[in-house]
């Protein structure tokens, strides 16, 4: 097979896997930003917690992969409800600076706690036998786990979009993102809506953290190190948008993979320069309202 073609397929495949993880983690951040105007820099903490809980449940307690993921997502969603009700909610009306400082404080604390419990080394992901190895698609083979990752993520995303599109809850979220006052005057309980959305976003982030543990390594600095990726996805996609971050994640995931693969020397810069250029052209992102 043509070498160039083969490389392109490879880049596309791994880029897509990376993009899925980025999107599943970041979509909650976009909605929180659009719905509550809350600059939640600690969003990555929920993904990190998901990653730690998933790997620990599997590696230490032998919980099957699927159950470990669900357990992590539910546990993190519940934890996020507590945080939202008791801490975040106090800062909904506050300035952006307060929100940023508060969430950075949370990151610092989370980093310390995680380091205290799990130590400084990255967590290993012991995949079940069925998901390790390669899968043969006839024309070439791909790593089984990443194939599974892309497939399951796409299913999740379709379910999420249908949910936002079709359910009553989804309609309320869309209405509130669009115009919060209007939604309130229509009798939507925005406080409850915030809590539910926040929990959903955090749970998804935890799922993304667990699913993506072999792409974004689970280690104490996780919430700092990948923050800029999550923020890029949200800013490029457009704050508050649900589909925008998907397009942004695919663009970022694939191009980042491509540049790191093709020009490893400067690969890491290109993505930043591209994002800066893109935001100069469209400061509100691809799908954001100006």
């Amino acid at each position, binding site marked *: 097979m043509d070498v160039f073609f083969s490389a392109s397929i490879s880049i596309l495949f791994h880029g897509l896997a990376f993009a899925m993880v980025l999107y599943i983690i970041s979509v909650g951040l976009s909605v929180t930003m659009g719905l509550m105007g809350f600059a939640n820099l600690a969003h990555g903490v929920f993904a990190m917690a998901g990653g730690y809980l998933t790997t620990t449940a599997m590696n230490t307690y032998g919980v099957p992969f699927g159950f470990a993921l669900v357990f992590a997502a539910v546990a993190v969603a519940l934890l996020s409800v507590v945080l939202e009700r008791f801490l975040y909610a106090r800062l909904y009306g*506050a300035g952006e600076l307060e929100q940023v*400082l508060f969430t950075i404080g*949370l990151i610092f604390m989370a980093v310390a706690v995680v380091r205290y419990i799990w130590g400084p080394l990255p967590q290993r992901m012991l995949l079940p036998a069925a998901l390790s190895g390669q899968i043969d698609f006839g024309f070439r083979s791909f790593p089984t786990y990443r194939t599974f990752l892309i497939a399951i993520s796409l299913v999740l995303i379709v379910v999420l979009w249908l949910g936002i599109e079709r359910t009553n809850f989804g309609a309320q979220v869309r209405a509130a993102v669009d115009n919060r006052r209007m939604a309130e005057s229509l009798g939507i309980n925005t406080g409850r809506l915030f809590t539910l959305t926040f929990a959903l976003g955090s749970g998804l982030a935890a799922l993304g953290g667990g699913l993506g543990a072999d792409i974004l390594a689970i280690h104490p600095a996780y919430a*700092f190190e990948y923050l800029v990726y999550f923020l890029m996805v*949200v800013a490029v996609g457009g704050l508050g948008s649900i589909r925008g971050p998907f397009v942004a994640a695919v663009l970022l995931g694939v191009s980042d993979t491509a540049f790191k693969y093709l020009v490893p020397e400067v690969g890491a*810069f290109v993505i930043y320069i591209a994002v800066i250029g893109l*935001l100069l052209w469209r400061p509100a992102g691809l799908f954001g309202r100006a």
Partner: protein
Amino acid sequence: MIFKRPSSSDSAPSDSAVEQMVRSHRLRPLELLPWIVVVGAYFVFPEYLPLGSQILIMILFAISLDLILGYAGIITLGHSALFGVGAYAAGIYALHVTGEPLSGLVVAAVAAGIVGFVSGLVILRTHGLTLLMLTLAITFLIAELANKAGFITGGADGLQGIAMQEIFGQFRFDMFGRTAYVYSAVVLFLVWLFARLLVHSPFGRSLTGIRENVTRMHAIGTPVRKRLVTVYTISAMLAGLAGGLLTHTTQFVGLSVLSFERSGEIVIMLILGGIGRLYGAFVGAAVYMIAQDELAKADPVFWYFWIGLLLVLIVMFARGGILGLVDQALRLVRRKP
């Protein structure tokens, strides 16, 4: 009724309103307190002078941040990029051109100023989370650049073998850190004079206006973006100066000067002291650095936990930082009698 004249007790006599505002920039005795401490520390704690100059440098760095964060309200997590550019510029200049310190400081400030001006043009077109992300992206970009350009920056090993000449050809950097301390203190003093003038100038007032209500500033004819880019550039130059001082006093530059943690720490120092009041930088940097020196070495993991908790508590209960608490306490005391 809003047209009722307030009784004389609840408002100052009218002609003094102008007087009071015209005098608002006059030096109050309390403003000299930090300088008494800076001079006193030199004699009282001679064995702590190396830590002392680190504190002075962080105060300078925090003042530079206060100009944009506290006064103009630009929320950045990328201020270490400018500090780092200054540090590297000073280091490269000392290694390849001359070890003369004063010209090195100028080089550090100008290099950081150029980076600040260009990045300011970019990031100040946006706001909110996007602006914050861009400050991070630019910091990562510059850190990656320093990491990859090993032939000039020393990469992960950092810049080693920097040898500084005597200041004015007179004062050698001694092993006790005396010269370094005095050098840092004098630079900080000059920066303080400048920053104090700046925040009390019409320009400084207009920054406060932009922070308080940018829509109104547009509507009174302020060229908002020009003001912001200007202050961002000035702040970058001061941050670069701080970075240059660090290079000169430690004679080493490593990648950590560009790290996200450093950006985070300087924000925390400023918040801890109190933002938008110039002196928060002094209090916050000193308290943070001394606490870190005492506590962090024993248990760095715990240290970050307490810093995080402190930040959360400040946001929840003491938004003015330490100086804000002092203000509140003074008001309580004055109200009592």
